[in-house]
């Protein structure tokens, strides 16, 4: 195990340098936050407005929280980014998608859920944030 880690460390050191600028984009503060509020602060979200123009499609119940497919969409013009947060996960921020040059504010992805919780989606539109959520009942913890 130790040797494996050491080798992986060497590989990372070799590969990471040219990609460092790319890696610096990753919002460590928001992704490592263990509380929803702290994650949202890390994302600099302030003053959310609940909106039915943010659509969150997911199953009502998930037998296994390891794979919950979710489709998210914003019908608000000029949506710049969509964020997915699961309040009751060990780290609530799941993903942050930024769109440009004709990409629609639409994503399908598969996420892990630790327990029954809302899947909260936040859309950034200029300086405003719009949000909506969908509750999913989770029978088996998928965040091991």
């Amino acid at each position, binding site marked *: *195990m130790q040797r494996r*880690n050491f080798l*992986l460390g060497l*590989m*990372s*050191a*070799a*590969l*990471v340098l040219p*990609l460092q600028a*790319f*890696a610096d*984009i*990753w*919002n460590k503060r928001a*992704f490592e936050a263990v509380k929803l509020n702290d994650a949202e602060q890390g994302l600099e979200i302030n003053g959310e407005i609940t909106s039915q123009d943010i659509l969150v499609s997911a199953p009502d119940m998930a037998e296994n929280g*390891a*794979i*919950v*497919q979710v489709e998210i969409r914003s019908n608000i013009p000029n949506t710049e980014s969509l964020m997915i947060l*699961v309040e009751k*996960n*060990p*780290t609530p*921020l*799941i*993903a*942050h*998608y*930024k*769109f*440009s*040059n*004709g*990409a*629609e504010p*639409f*994503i*399908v*992805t*598969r*996420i*892990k859920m630790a327990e029954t919780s809302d899947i909260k989606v936040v859309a950034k539109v200029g300086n405003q944030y719009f949000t909506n959520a969908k509750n999913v009942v989770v029978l088996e913890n*998928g*965040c*091991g």
Partner: protein
Amino acid sequence: MAVDNMKMRAQLKGDYVEVKVLISHPMDTGRKKGDDGELIPAHFVQLITATLNGLPVLEAQWGTGISKNPYLTFRLRNAKVGDVVAVTWLDNFGASATQNIAVTKG
């Protein structure tokens, strides 16, 4: 460039192109123990970027809450058959891969 840890498809569907991406990756959270009782270190894809004919269209940041073997669908306006979509991922160990694919008729 084709890589064995990524599968991609880009299809024209009416007035948009739908891109589907599947990546082989453990997406370890760092909270699970292996058979030896030791914690398996967090090992997950942190960044995904996509371009259309070289122009950036999507930048995704992921945490450990994306499922193992990540799946992603996104949609592009202003894209047509023959256009090239490229997707690159980078994980927290510094590993990365890029795959290009041409848009086909759906």
